[in-house]
């Protein structure tokens, strides 16, 4: 049995997610017949990053008939509300879904996707617009960033569980946090390398310059991650990517990369965009 417990705050930050992803690896490596228990009862905060990762794990366990138990905390109330609005309570506790139409709600339920549709980012935009006026360029960048990452999942990952999308808006900070997780082939395995270039170098070029692509579908031009990075840079955002044995964090136009051990068998892209903060290049 793989029993994994977390405590404290699992913030939507690279440091917190590094801890969470690393702790979750044994659950993602569990084989058929092995029971998996994720104990979050001592956790006081988590958001879309944890949500998307848990749903991806649930889909893997379901497909492999691995018994999975996720134990959620009974408090604090804000976290309980998030568990309800995100759809996690319905998925893991069997409780009725909480309507996301509640006026104070800042969460959209998680979505599982196989193919990317143009409407896919509408829900988070509509939710934000219930709280604040969304500028045209922010609207454009948010939708584009979400769709670019989703399209990468569809085109390159070969994820057996599809992709999982979760997002949450924070009205006080005017910030939107997005998580997209798949359990397919990681970026370092698919990105083409020049000569004997290490994977990290190729991923760096992908994010900062674009034009690096395995052209899996015949219509790829290596622009997806470039645009994610560009939008994040313009909107004072932050991007954290965990893929295979590579971690990339983009913040203040600075890209930091490091090897991670054990590797995450898939790709988790977590990003934050500050609405109304866009800066011209």
């Amino acid at each position, binding site marked *: 049995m793989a029993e994994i417990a977390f405590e404290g705050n699992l913030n939507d930050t690279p440091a917190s997610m590094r801890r969470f992803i690393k702790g979750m690896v044994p659950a993602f490596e569990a084989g058929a017949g092995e029971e998996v228990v994720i104990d979050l009862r001592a956790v006081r905060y988590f958001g879309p990053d944890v949500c998307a990762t848990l749903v991806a794990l649930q889909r893997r366990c379901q497909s492999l008939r691995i018994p999975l138990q996720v134990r959620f905390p009974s408090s604090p109330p804000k976290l309980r509300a998030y568990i309800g609005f995100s759809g996690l309570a319905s998925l893991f506790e069997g409780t009725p879904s909480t309507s996301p139409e509640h006026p104070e709600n800042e969460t959209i339920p998680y979505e599982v996707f196989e*193919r*990317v*549709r*143009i*409407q896919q*980012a509408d829900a988070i*935009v509509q939710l934000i617009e219930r709280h604040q006026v969304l500028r*045209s*360029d922010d*609207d*454009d*960048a*948010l*939708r*584009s960033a*979400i*769709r*670019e990452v989703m*399209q990468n999942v*569809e*085109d390159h990952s070969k994820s057996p569980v599809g992709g999982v999308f979760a997002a949450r808006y924070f009205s006080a900070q005017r910030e939107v946090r997005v998580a997209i997780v798949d359990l397919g082939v990681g970026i370092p395995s698919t990105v083409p390398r020049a000569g004997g270039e290490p994977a990290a170098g190729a991923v760096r070029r992908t994010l900062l310059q*674009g*034009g690096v692509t395995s052209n899996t*579908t*015949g*219509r*790829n*031009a*290596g*622009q*997806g991650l*470039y*645009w994610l990075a560009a939008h994040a840079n313009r909107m004072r955002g932050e991007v954290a990517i965990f893929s295979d044995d590579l971690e990339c964090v983009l913040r203040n136009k600075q890209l930091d990369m490091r090897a991670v051990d054990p590797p995450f068998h898939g790709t988790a892209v977590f990003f934050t965009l500050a609405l109304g903060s866009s800066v011209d290049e």
Partner: protein
Amino acid sequence: MSNSTVSTSETIVVQEVAWSDSIADSGTRLGGIIASELSTRHQVAVSFRGLRGVPSTFFNAMVVRALQDVTPEAIATKVKFEFENDVQEQVWLRTARAYQLPVVGRR
């Protein structure tokens, strides 16, 4: 996208609301429409006004499909793109560059 693409005189207006296919399929279909229009017209205008967050995949798929029937030069000289905003135009320009199109869209 068959219901969302309306040819009025020489302008193809791409409307988001009626899209039902995947983004890639929608782009492919638009590329086919552009190629088809170019076979009967000297000039074609494509308006992306009203669309938000068009990802690079859409433009990529559009170009790949159009290039099956028309030359890069035809896209450069005979197609006029109208964009919703600068971000959208920048996404298009990077796609155009990636496919080495001698084309610059203008809003």
